[in-house]
């Protein structure tokens, strides 16, 4: 404690200093949940000008902050008390880490003197989160707060973004001291790519006869979408995308061949397996995208563009590595473009051959068609958040995205329960957006309590619940790879979801027939305030195509290769 001897100097508490520092870093909204060790911070919150959103579970707060961070590219902020509050944040922190999302997490902690004594609600959250944060701090002196918080934001948002944790012991949060001298941090270093590497990339790409580009999530994170589109327009190279790269090229663009990988489109997977040069932009060769790695893009020379040197040749050797700011790299790569007409024609032919079909057999509602209709009929700025499972893959396959920020999906961690809190985070970040959460009957139950948050703040979030009475994606795998030995995937005793929504004060409707879809979507989108549309679908529906584990991407199972539908 650095109490000033001079009575004229105004003393501030550690909590007030922390809030001052948040405000100085441009924070307006925070998500959280109070409790013992963080009470001084909540005390200082009142009247501070920061708007706090009380979620109903700390995981909801962390995932809402994740979505806020994704859609603004500025750190989302969440806070919770020590012990169980802090451990409840962990899934949200891991989610942000896996998807490189800027986030600042503040946890209350027991007083410094009690650290390491198994005090009430003491948990080593600093230690627990070491593998899933970009950096973390334990605040030990109020004088360090301004600098520490500035650095936390700089780290969370700079380079390859990620979550940063600040563990805030209670005695520090109540300690009083004079406002420490404030020295702004010098701006973060900006890695510019090597011009020689850019030149080599242009040469190698210029020699290609069957070039392909993979658009990854890094393009959105680094705000390089425009540069990417100009690069694509100049080179005319066909483009595929990872889950997180969807929308970097508009879905309907001629050069876009679809998403690659396990549930990717046939055109994308054939293009990637046949290309001779593969330009990977802000993507990291995730196993869901590559299929069996050893046979991935077997004849391709790889050009890898990424801000993170540790991604280069981690899983697939890059012949050319361009490390640094993606937009600068993309602006610099201007290869010759001759001699590719037949490859482009081949990609166009694949696109035609593997175009999605919506004439599914069966009498029930076909979810892919509903999603396609939704994203084509809705007003301009539609943002879709999803949960994890079959419905998530159908969103990726069948919705149309003109902007990658219109699609928020838990990619790296695959967190069931992301959809609802994510919708809250986006709606607060972008109040003018039409936010639709597409969830499953399993996933929605993981954070169903957030309906109360939606209601309390009257957030106009539209929920489409695709109810197949099952943990569908797991059921699909048991059907295909475990001899139909169904183990703990049946949810046929689901609660009445429409009634659940009503209990939270959220209007709802249920449908089960194709003829009801158009009117129901119209109702959902034109309803004032939040609303939930409960859609019963065929429990046996599967996601196609599917690259079975251990297979290369061109070996895709189709509907008719499965035993039963």
């Amino acid at each position, binding site marked *: 404690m650095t109490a000033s001897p001079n009575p004229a100097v105004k003393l501030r508490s550690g909590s007030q200093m922390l809030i001052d520092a948040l405000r100085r870093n441009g924070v307006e909204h925070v998500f959280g949940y109070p409790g013992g060790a963080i009470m001084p911070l909540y005390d200082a919150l009142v009247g501070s000008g920061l708007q706090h959103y009380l979620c109903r579970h700390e995981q909801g707060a962390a995932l809402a902050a994740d979505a806020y961070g994704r859609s603004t590219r500025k750190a989302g902020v969440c806070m919770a008390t020590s012990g169980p509050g802090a451990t409840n944040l962990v899934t949200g922190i891991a989610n942000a880490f896996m998807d490189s999302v800027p986030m600042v997490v503040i946890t209350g902690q027991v007083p410094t003197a009690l650290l390491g004594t198994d005090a009430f609600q003491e948990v080593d959250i600093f230690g627990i989160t*070491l*593998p899933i944060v970009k*950096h*973390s701090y334990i605040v030990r002196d109020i004088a360090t707060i301004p600098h520490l918080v500035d650095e936390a934001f700089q780290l969370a948002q700079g380079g390859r973004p990620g979550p940063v944790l600040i563990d805030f012991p209670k005695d520090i949060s109540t300690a009083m001291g004079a406002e420490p001298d404030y020295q702004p941090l010098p701006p973060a270093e900006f890695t510019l790519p090597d011009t020689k590497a850019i030149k080599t990339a242009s040469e190698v790409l210029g020699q290609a006869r069957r070039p392909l580009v993979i658009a990854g999530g890094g393009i959105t994170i680094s705000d390089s979408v425009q540069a990417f589109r100009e690069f694509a327009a100049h080179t005319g190279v066909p483009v595929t995308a990872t889950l997180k790269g969807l929308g970097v090229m508009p879905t309907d663009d001629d050069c876009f061949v679809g998403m690659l990988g396990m549930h990717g489109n046939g055109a994308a997977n054939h293009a990637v397996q046949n290309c001779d040069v593969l330009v990977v932009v802000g993507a990291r060769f995730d196993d869901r995208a590559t299929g069996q790695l050893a046979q991935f893009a077997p004849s391709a020379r790889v050009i890898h563009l990424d801000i993170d*040197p540790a991604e280069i*040749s981690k899983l697939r050797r890059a012949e050319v590595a361009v490390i640094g700011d993606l937009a600068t790299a993309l602006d610099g790569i201007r290869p010759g473009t001759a001699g590719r007409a037949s490859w482009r024609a081949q990609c166009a032919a694949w696109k035609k051959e593997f175009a999605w079909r919506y004439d599914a057999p069966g009498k029930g509602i076909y979810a892919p068609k509903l999603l396609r209709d939704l994203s084509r009929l809705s007003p301009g700025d539609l943002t879709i958040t999803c949960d994890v499972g079959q419905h998530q893959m159908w969103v990726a396959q069948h919705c149309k995205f003109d902007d990658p920020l219109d699609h928020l999906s838990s990619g790296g961690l695959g967190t069931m329960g992301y959809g609802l809190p994510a919708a809250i985070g986006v709606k607060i970040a972008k109040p003018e957006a039409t936010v639709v959460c597409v969830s499953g009957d399993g996933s929605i139950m993981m954070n169903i309590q957030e309906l109360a948050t939606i209601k309390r703040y009257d957030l106009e979030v539209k929920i489409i619940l695709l109810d197949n009475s099952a943990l569908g994606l797991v059921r699909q795998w048991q059907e295909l790879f475990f001899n139909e030995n169904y183990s703990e995937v049946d949810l046929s005793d689901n609660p009445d979801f429409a009634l659940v929504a009503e209990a939270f004060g959220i209007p709802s409707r249920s449908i089960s027939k194709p003829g009801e879809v158009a009117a129901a979507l119209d109702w959902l989108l034109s309803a004032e305030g939040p609303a939930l549309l409960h859609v019963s679908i065929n429990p046996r529906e599967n996601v196609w195509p599917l690259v079975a584990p251990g297979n290369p991407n061109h070996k895709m199972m189709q509907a008719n290769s499965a035993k039963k539908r």
Partner: protein
Amino acid sequence: MHTLRIQIRDNDGAVLRALGLIERRCYRLRSCVIGETNDGGRTMEVSVSSSRSGDLLKRQLERLHDVMKVELQPVAIVDGQHSAIRPLGRRN
């Protein structure tokens, strides 16, 4: 076998962070000597065994905010045993 000399800041958890990363990325820790530098920082000299690349581990360590510098020296493998660790040369 790879040998790395790591310079880190003396921050909360810095040593754990580096060691945790090494194990998590599937490099097996064989030896580790932690010392102090004149300016209050820490040095770690670690030997690890792995089929994965030492250079990749170096780049992964360099991502950590606490890590200031990593030098990598491969150690010759003689009959399955690693030879004595030679002093690390300055590399620039």
